């Protein structure tokens, strides 16, 4: 799929999601809907459950209650859901021994996309000059950009980004904003957790602290 194609129309939503981690309720009764081309910005103080929710959306963790829907159909099989999305978390899945290009090429091959977009992905995040540089030599921001470049190199309709602005300099921040805008213009969906910069203009905002269960709920629920 080239960058100019658009994604099939799809919506991603969650109903009445509740998550307990280690015996403690993180959020309860949370719902959201992301339309085609939509964006959802997760906000909330530290510990309000942004990371937890993103991993839930990726199918890496299961909700204690509630369910996720893809174009209205409940998601049962987390393995199949993986095909819809790219998840970029705090850990960057980069092999230090491989070069920048090799790192990208592996994931593209692994996800079964053709590798025509690798060059463009490196350009989008200012990595073209570093293409044959071993990843171990990258600085914190350069590494993070390499992780983000996977979004462009191997397209998928839903992007789940956990604090994608971390460690990025101003120029890369601009590149990220542009990439997200282009993705949405093609009908892609974006969910991102952020404390600061506004990376997805016009997107909906989900304030997670609103879904923190009341104290009583935590206590009786077990």
């Amino acid at each position, binding site marked *: 799929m080239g960058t100019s194609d658009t994604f099939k129309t799809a919506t991603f939503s969650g109903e009445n999601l509740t998550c307990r981690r280690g015996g403690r309720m993180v959020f309860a009764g949370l719902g959201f809907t992301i339309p085609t081309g939509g964006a959802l910005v997760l906000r909330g103080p530290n510990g309000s459950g942004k990371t937890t929710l993103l991993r839930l959306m990726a199918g890496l963790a*299961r909700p204690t209650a509630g369910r996720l829907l893809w174009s209205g159909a409940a998601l049962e099989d*987390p393995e199949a859901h993986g095909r819809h999305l790219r998840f970029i978390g*705090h*850990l960057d899945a980069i*092999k230090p021994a491989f070069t920048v290009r090799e790192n990208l090429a*592996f994931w593209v*091959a692994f*996800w079964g996309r053709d590798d025509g977009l690798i060059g463009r992905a490196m350009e989008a995040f200012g990595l073209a000059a570093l293409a044959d540089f071993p990843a171990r030599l990258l600085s914190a921001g350069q590494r993070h950009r390499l992780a983000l470049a996977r979004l462009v190199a191997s397209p998928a309709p839903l992007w789940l980004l956990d604090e994608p602005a971390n460690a990025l300099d101003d120029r890369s921040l601009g590149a990220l904003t542009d990439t997200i805008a282009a993705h949405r213009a093609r009908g892609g969906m974006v969910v991102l957790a952020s404390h600061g910069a506004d990376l997805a203009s016009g997107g909906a905002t989900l304030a997670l602290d609103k879904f923190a269960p009341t104290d009583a709920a935590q206590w009786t629920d077990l």
Partner: protein
Amino acid sequence: MSAFTALLARDLHLALRQSADSFTVVAFFAIATVLFPFGVGPEAEVLARIAAGVLWVAALLAALLSLDRVFTVDFEDGSLDQLLLNGQSLTLMVLAKVAAHWLTTGVPLIIMSPVMAVTLQLPAEGYGVLVLALILGTPTVSLIGALGAALVLGSRRGGVLLSLLVLPLYIPVLIFGTAAVEAAITGMPSGPMLSVLAGLALIAVTLCPLGTAAALRQAAE
């Protein structure tokens, strides 16, 4: 290229890039084997008597050490999360990783074993069967080891815990592996033992990847 071959190729490529790796497994095997004559004394009869057992134990321990890191690196750098998200069967991914592990550690170990057998004064009749038994046994070792490695993923002191889980499961391989070699030395048929080893490998290849995949999914959660 399918996800399976992509992953297998990556792991082999990584092993080649870090060329010291399979070399160090072989080195551990060699050193552990060499330690025994020190502990036991150099008398040829005693050594020959225990050679087959020592070789197998050393091979198991060498495999164990290298297993420690089959999934740890991918787990710690977040690759595992991404591997889980490819929309395909995780079991197949596990098989790719196990195959890569076997190719980079099991195979060098098999190639090395006749040399170590000389050191331990194994009678010449045993060589062929030793190699055959290792060829049949080491895949099982990799498969069971991967299961153990997945189970202890993210636990503290994974390495030691892993041994605890996995070594008892290696006992059948050890028993039949050495029995085959001893049979060959004493002129008995070693076919039955070798077919038991093949059977164990079959059971392991059908059961272990499923368990490993489930354990990996738990670890990510």
